[in-house]
């Protein structure tokens, strides 16, 4: 095997990793701040992909259709996340873990069927705009030019989230709320509104991820089922609530997949769970998490 193949494979692993990061970062943010594990996260991701398709379909005569559809889909999902938080999630803040899990699991089923009702059972395909239609050649190896876009969106979201949480006033409030809800609310900051905002932000990123995913292949019902588990694994490996951890873990999982598909295709899907179980056994709080949460 020569160097250019390894390079191409690691680039495709990176784009897969960035895709996983986009899904897992919102999941990790919501869990880190609200302590709610959102089973429906990948279902929102899938809705984002379908929304992107619809916006693209309405504007398909124009070359720029896709580039407008992606942010539109993400904003639609943010609004949906806002509503769901206010109507459902808010009612289970103080419940036990199993009840919260069940509520979000039930949302997977309900939203999954609503997707079927709204968009039907046929696969949806977005024709790519000319800018990303042809592969680019890197060291003589063909590489899907759209994946370069995926990688840059992933990096942009990582940097944007980091900047938001570390450098802005709202980011500071959110991080303070993780450590002491009582203190933050004693300072006159409404915790429910912070939670709603965080949930909407998480779902916004999920929607963005879905919209970015949409032109990669066809959009199919039930795609979310396998993805949500992989996103869980990424969050677990990185450590709950750690953005850096999620980022590193997503790249690890993406690369492990890209190279195992080369050497041992049957085992590629099993391997992620082996890695996850291994991490949970030796270091339950993940690579970058803190033991206090365990």
């Amino acid at each position, binding site marked *: 095997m020569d160097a250019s193949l390894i390079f191409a494979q690691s680039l495709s692993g990176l784009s897969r990793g960035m895709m996983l990061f986009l899904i897992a970062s919102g999941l990790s943010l919501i869990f880190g701040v609200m302590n709610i594990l959102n089973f429906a996260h990948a279902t929102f991701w899938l809705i984002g992909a379908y929304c992107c398709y619809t916006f693209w379909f309405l504007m398909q005569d124009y070359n720029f259709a896709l580039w407008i559809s992606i942010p539109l889909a993400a904003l639609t999902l943010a609004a949906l996340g806002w509503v769901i938080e206010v109507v459902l999630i808010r009612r289970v803040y103080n419940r036990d873990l199993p009840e919260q899990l069940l509520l979000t699991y039930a949302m997977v*089923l309900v939203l999954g069927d609503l997707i079927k009702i709204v968009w039907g059972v046929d696969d949806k395909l977005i024709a790519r705009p000319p800018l990303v239609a042809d592969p680019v050649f890197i060291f003589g190896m063909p590489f899907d030019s759209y994946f370069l876009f995926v990688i840059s969106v992933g990096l942009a979201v990582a940097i944007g989230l980091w900047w938001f949480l570390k450098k802005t006033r709202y980011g500071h409030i959110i991080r303070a709320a993780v450590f002491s809800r009582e203190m933050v609310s004693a300072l006159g900051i409404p915790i429910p509104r912070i939670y709603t905002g965080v949930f909407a932000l998480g779902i916004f990123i999920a929607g963005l991820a879905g919209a970015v995913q949409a032109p990669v292949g066809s959009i199919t019902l039930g795609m979310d089922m396998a993805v949500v*588990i992989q996103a869980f694994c990424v969050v677990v490996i990185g450590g709950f609530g750690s953005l850096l951890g999620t980022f590193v873990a997503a790249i690890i999982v993406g690369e492990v997949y890209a190279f195992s598909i080369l050497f041992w295709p049957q085992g590629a*899907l099993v391997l992620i769970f082996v890695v996850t179980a291994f991490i949970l056994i030796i270091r339950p709080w993940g690579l970058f998490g803190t033991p206090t949460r365990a």
Partner: protein
Amino acid sequence: MIRYGWLGLIFIATLILPLVIGEYWIHVAVEILIMGLFAVSFNMIFGYMGQLSFGHAAYFGAGAYATGLLMVKTSVPLPICLAISMITAGVLALVIGYFCVRLTGIYFAILTMAFGQMLYYIIFQWYSFTGGDDGLQGIVPPDWIIQVTAYYYFTLFIVTGALIVMWVISESPFGYTMRAIRDNADRTRFIGINVRKYMLINFVVAGMFAGLAGGLLGPFNRSIAPDLCNWHQSGVPVFMTVIGGPLGFLGPVIGSVIYTFLFAFVTGFTEYWPLTIGLVIIFVVLYMPGGVLGLVKTKFKTIGAEESMDAEA
């Protein structure tokens, strides 16, 4: 004693049930029994040990594949297949549980799920042995229970026996030790109990009965598929237990009756079963914590009043 009277009545009712309902509903009844056993075995971990196993389908699926493979590839009699199913699932639970009982809460849930998904993808990919995603076909029960009514009585006999064994376990000192671990693992450790060992034993027992339930499913459906081990299958006993109520021994069975009956009923006229059950679950979580059994107990304190509801808090 009134409780036992009720149980006796229910048992007699289940005995005469096939005489009064049609063949379709006998199928439903068999499924209720199998899934009820699966859900009760799940509740040994959830209700009595206080941990949410989100990979319980692994043992169910392992049991189903043990019996299925034996029946397709050999001529071992069914009861021995079922025993081997229990042993297979128990050994699997021993290996997985050895690691899982070190964790609690969300970590326990995710680790059980990760192991469950590992098994799922192994079965899914291993075409030469498990048939991959084609599953296994032609698992025909022996002649003496090939009629659905006969299979119903066979299942009723085995499930009742298994439930009695699990009930005895849950009412034994061991069962009360599990409740102590659920309510306060640290204090239980302080009085000299090896918490991990007890949790592991409970995990293995729960896995064995899940394997038995899985074993019963293959010959009933005549086929099995790897989806039996997938994570949505692990959600089914969780649903049943939450609908029925986790704090009574028979709560998951009540949940199985409601869930399976609803499934048979709803799928009769709409394909949107997930939507229906999803809305039911949201309703139960928001307005009926404690499930149907919890509701019945708060409304009619006399029935089973001696069982405490304290863990609800």
